[in-house]
């Protein structure tokens, strides 16, 4: 079969023009699919920025919370309830709100303010500059160095500004593994100061961060939280919930997935059409091969090899091109977000094989029905 494979590939590749058209079609489609889905994953990751950056294993929240921008505060007795659940090592509150920072030029810049539990600072970020204990100093805030950091005029340690009319001073600059989706900077302070600086409803706890005694305790803890009428989620589940919100509730997901599907259709029609023309043009030759003694199964094998070879080449080029563009984009475009992960690559691979299967299917049907007698009769 190796020789047959070689003949099949030579027939395909030596037909330069058609092969090029085929590869360009598939590459283009793969590029778009990978690019769009990567951007989508990037957006989803950013949407979960708080969850990732705080890094708690278990999160307790109001069951009607939909996304991290609009938290629903819980009364403090919930914290006590959670603390008393079996298997909980510790449980602390997290404040999350948006404050208005007054810039030097008189403009206002909203910023996410995260208030860390005063006693433990659970969820504290890794610092690039400054000492974490300085967060307890007067009016102290730590700023995350993400894409939105310059929006507060790139403050340094010691820079002061007003948040909701309260004097504030930067005491540290933190690493931000993931920047937020909403294009606003992130500030950390203590829970008590956050509550003091920002306007609040009756309740102030946005989330309760829970550290279980062991991984095995997690299901029990979630179950117990549910009994209190609140919602406990693992980090993964919470990210999923946020993803689903953006996929299903905002139109971002459906639109991007629709574009992905359209690229897929375009790619499929271009390459399906080209491959079909290729086979059609070689139909007589396939008939001659049949007359010479090639079995139907061998001709099908040839077509499948040709289709898969084109598919994989186009896939490789498309993914490569996408990766290149993402690398360039990340370097030069602020707030550009795209992540190639296994799911995009997997999805694109599945799609390219659907394209290949679809193209070969129509080609195979054509080749199966060629009668060598008709070739013979000329």
């Amino acid at each position, binding site marked *: *079969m*190796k*020789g*047959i494979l*070689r*003949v099949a590939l*030579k*027939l395909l590749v*030596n*037909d330069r023009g058609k092969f090029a058209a085929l590869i360009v079609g598939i590459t283009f489609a793969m590029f778009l699919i990978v690019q769009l889905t990567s951007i989508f994953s990037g957006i989803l990751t950013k949407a979960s920025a708080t969850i990732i950056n705080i890094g708690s294993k278990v999160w307790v929240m109001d069951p009607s919370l939909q996304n991290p921008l609009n938290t629903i505060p819980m009364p403090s007795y919930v914290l006590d309830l959670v603390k008393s659940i079996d298997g909980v090592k510790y449980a602390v509150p997290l404040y999350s709100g948006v404050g208005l920072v007054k810039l030097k030029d008189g403009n206002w810049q909203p910023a996410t303010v995260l208030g860390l539990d005063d006693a433990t600072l659970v969820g504290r970020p890794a610092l690039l500059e400054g000492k974490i204990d300085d967060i307890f100093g007067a009016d102290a805030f730590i700023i995350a160095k993400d894409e939105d950091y310059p929006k507060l005029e790139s403050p340094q340690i010691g820079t002061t500004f007003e948040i909701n009319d309260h004097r504030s001073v930067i005491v540290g600059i933190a690493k931000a593994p993931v920047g937020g989706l909403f294009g606003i900077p992130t500030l950390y302070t203590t829970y008590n100061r956050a509550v003091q600086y920002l306007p609040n409803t009756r309740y102030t706890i946005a989330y309760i961060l829970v550290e279980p005694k062991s991984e095995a305790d997690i299901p029990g803890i979630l179950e117990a939280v549910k009994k209190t009428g609140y919602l406990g989620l693992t980090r993964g589940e919470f990210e999923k919930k946020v993803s689903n919100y953006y996929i299903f509730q905002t139109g971002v997901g459906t639109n991007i997935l629709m574009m992905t599907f359209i690229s897929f259709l375009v790619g499929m029609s271009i390459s399906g059409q080209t491959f079909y023309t290729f086979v059609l043009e070689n139909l*007589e*030759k396939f*008939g*001659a*091969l*049949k*007359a*010479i*003694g*090639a*079995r*139907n*199964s*061998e001709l099908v094998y040839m077509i499948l090899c040709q289709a898969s070879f084109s598919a994989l080449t186009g896939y490789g080029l498309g993914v490569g091109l996408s990766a290149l563009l993402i690398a360039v984009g990340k370097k030069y475009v602020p707030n550009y977000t795209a992540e190639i992960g296994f799911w995009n690559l997997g999805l694109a691979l599945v799609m390219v094989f659907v394209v290949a299967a679809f193209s070969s299917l129509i080609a195979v049907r054509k080749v199966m029905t060629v*009668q*060598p*007698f008709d*070739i*013979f*009769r*000329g």
Partner: protein
Amino acid sequence: MPEVALAATGLEKWFGEGEARTWAVRGIGFEAFLGEMLYIVGPSGSGKTTLLSMISGILKPDAGSVAVEGKDIWSSSPNDIADFRLNKVGFVFQDFHLFPKLTTMENVAIPLIFKKMDWDLSMKSAVEFLDAVGLAGKAALPPNKLSGGEQQRVAIARALVGGPDLLIFDEPTASLDGTTGKRIIDFVKNKFLNDKRCILIVTHDSRIYGYADRIIAMEDGQIVKIMSGGEIED
């Protein structure tokens, strides 16, 4: 007594159904022998190509049998019939059907490749056969760089490379001028006809009748006459 290469009995083929049914071949039986060059001649539409296809395992007859080595080829499975064509028959089609995107050498090697012979060995053997038809120097060229006569010789090399018992030509001289036509038939007969092989030629071309050992004359799907050696007239 020469050995029988194939024996056809009661072959029938019709196309279409009901009113529109036309008989292409009706009730044909004959034997072809190893070592002979056998022609099938007749007016256009008399059923020559249809007959040739049925005896070479390309077109299934509606009735009758084609026995090769004592076995009816049409009672085997499609894969076995394909194998029969691959191993026992060499075809030279009227318009050659060479692959323009493969080299001449690769074109010739195709039957060996489908016999799963190693690539390098196939190419080596292909070059030998190209040499035999006088085209060794053109092995690396694509066929469309060759003249019509040369392309036909490539097709002949491809038909021969697998060592077939039955070599089949359909209208081999149709696209050649008189002298070239004669030359190629003379060449094929002298070089490739032996007592292990039967060469079957369908033709209109009375200029090459002289090379035939026997001629089967057809009309209207039936054999009207079988002539041998001396009694061939033009």
